[in-house]
């Protein structure tokens, strides 16, 4: 009995991975094949991008502030509080900006995609769309993925900028250090590879969070309860995958752009 349960679970996991791979591949190839629904892309870009600005700004400011507080406390032991700017900017741009933006946007938008598409599935709207001769993958999924990848890229830049600004505010008003020195250190030690690292990641994170959100939404079963289940699974798996892929990407990018 136990072996049967293990076998069933294993098969279910393999099947889910297979379904997701096929779904993600089709959604990806649709990005380059007409018809491309530009109005849907713009609507989603507005919902995902502009709708997420407030949480990204607040997260960025707070994270930058915390980084400045924590680093100043540690660095002062070595008389190196002057490098706070460098520490905050490198950490924000290379790591925390992309990953925090990815996780925050996934909490907001992967859940929204899963619940919206899931509701459409259980009310037969997806079947109605197919019956009307329109491919839901092209009409609903591809614009969401394209909009998320595009907007997460810009949201990450906003988050990085807010993080550095938050660190600067804490440095000046709470740690009572020189603001010009903070900005000089933040700017001068920044290299192009750092920026490339920070801007490559949101492209992957955007793809992961939107494809996972849409995937769980589109395979919803079991009525309204199923919609809730899909939403939870979408947020959990999108967040976990973003953190896991961040680890892999960091390893690859550090190999490509070794630190000086």
């Amino acid at each position, binding site marked *: 009995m136990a072996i049967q349960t293990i076998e069933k679970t294993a098969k279910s996991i393999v099947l889910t991975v297979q379904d997701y791979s096929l779904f993600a591949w089709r959604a990806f190839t649709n990005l380059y094949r007409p018809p491309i629904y530009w109005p849907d892309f713009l609507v989603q870009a507005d919902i995902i991008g502009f709708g997420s600005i407030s949480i990204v700004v607040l997260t960025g400011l707070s994270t930058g502030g915390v980084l400045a507080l924590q680093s100043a406390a540690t660095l002062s032991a070595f008389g190196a509080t002057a490098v706070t700017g460098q520490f905050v900017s490198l950490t924000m741009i290379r790591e925390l900006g992309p990953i925090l933006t990815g996780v925050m946007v996934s909490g907001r938008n992967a859940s929204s995609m899963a619940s919206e598409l899931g509701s459409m599935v259980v009310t037969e709207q997806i079947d109605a769309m*197919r019956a*009307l001769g329109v491919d839901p993958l092209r009409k609903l999924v591809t614009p969401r993925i394209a909009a998320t990848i595009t907007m997460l890229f810009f949201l990450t830049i906003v988050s990085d900028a807010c993080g550095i600004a938050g660190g600067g505010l804490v440095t000046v008003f709470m740690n009572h250090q020189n603001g010009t020195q903070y900005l000089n250190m933040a700017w001068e030690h920044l290299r192009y590879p750092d920026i490339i690292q920070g801007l490559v990641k949101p492209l992957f994170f955007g793809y992961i969070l939107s494809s996972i959100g849409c995937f769980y939404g589109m395979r919803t079963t079991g009525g309204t309860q199923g919609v809730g289940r899909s939403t939870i699974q979408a947020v959990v798996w999108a967040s976990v995958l973003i953190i896991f892929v961040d680890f892999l990407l960091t390893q690859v990018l550090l190999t490509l752009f070794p630190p000086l």
Partner: protein
Amino acid sequence: MNETGAYPQPDQEQAPVADAGPVVVFSNVSIAFDGPPVLDDVSFSIAPGETRVLLGPAGVGKSVLLKLVNGLLRPDQGSILLFGEEISHMPEQQLFPLRTRVGMVFQEGALFDSLTVRDNVAYQLIQEQVPDAEINQRVRDALRFVELEETFDLYPASLSGGMRRRVAIARALIRTPELLLYDSPTGGLDPLTSTTIIELIVKERDVSHTPSLMVTHRLQDAFILCNHRFDPEQGRMVPLPKGETDPATTFLMLENGRLIFDGTLHELVKSKNPFVREFLE
């Protein structure tokens, strides 16, 4: 709507003249979902101009059968011909153009919540980038056919259940389909609204002669469909003379996934099959 009460057929989209072959052919179709078969070895066909009523209690696979007709589901075994093309293994991308020739009315209407009635009815036309003026005209014609012209700018949330079904019928008709599929169009509606919906189906059957498959578990709807005709002069449905039935309307009945009856109303009421007898009584 023209003087006969028919839903107007745009010149450029006249349905092709039906050939002698059936519109839909099911041959030994079976399908299962993680359990016993939902449909088991089902075979039947729909001829041009024919209206078939699929009867059976809830949960016998009626909606599944309807979704198999236009490829929304794939059978595990057997073959399905739609307009002469084998669709049981056809790739989804090739099915989309075929589905635009079929109008489908879903159980709860399945209208898109975020779109107005106008955009719901015009959904296919908008995708085909038909000019706005033509869209508005054709949507008004379709809404006039279901007597809901005043709902043009409303959202589905503000419509009653019966109105939603009628909008769904307008959406199914706007592109003058060559086959109509109705999934329990009167399910959950009061008797008066149900009769309004059946009247629309009779009107479409008698005026446009579009072949159709209607799924229902309500015998009274099936009998009204068979015993009435649409009178274009009076602009309403009237009963056929006593003892007469519509010759183009025939019945199918499912029991536990198996097709146990295929024939006319007369044959249905004379059937000795215990399940048919129980269902009728």
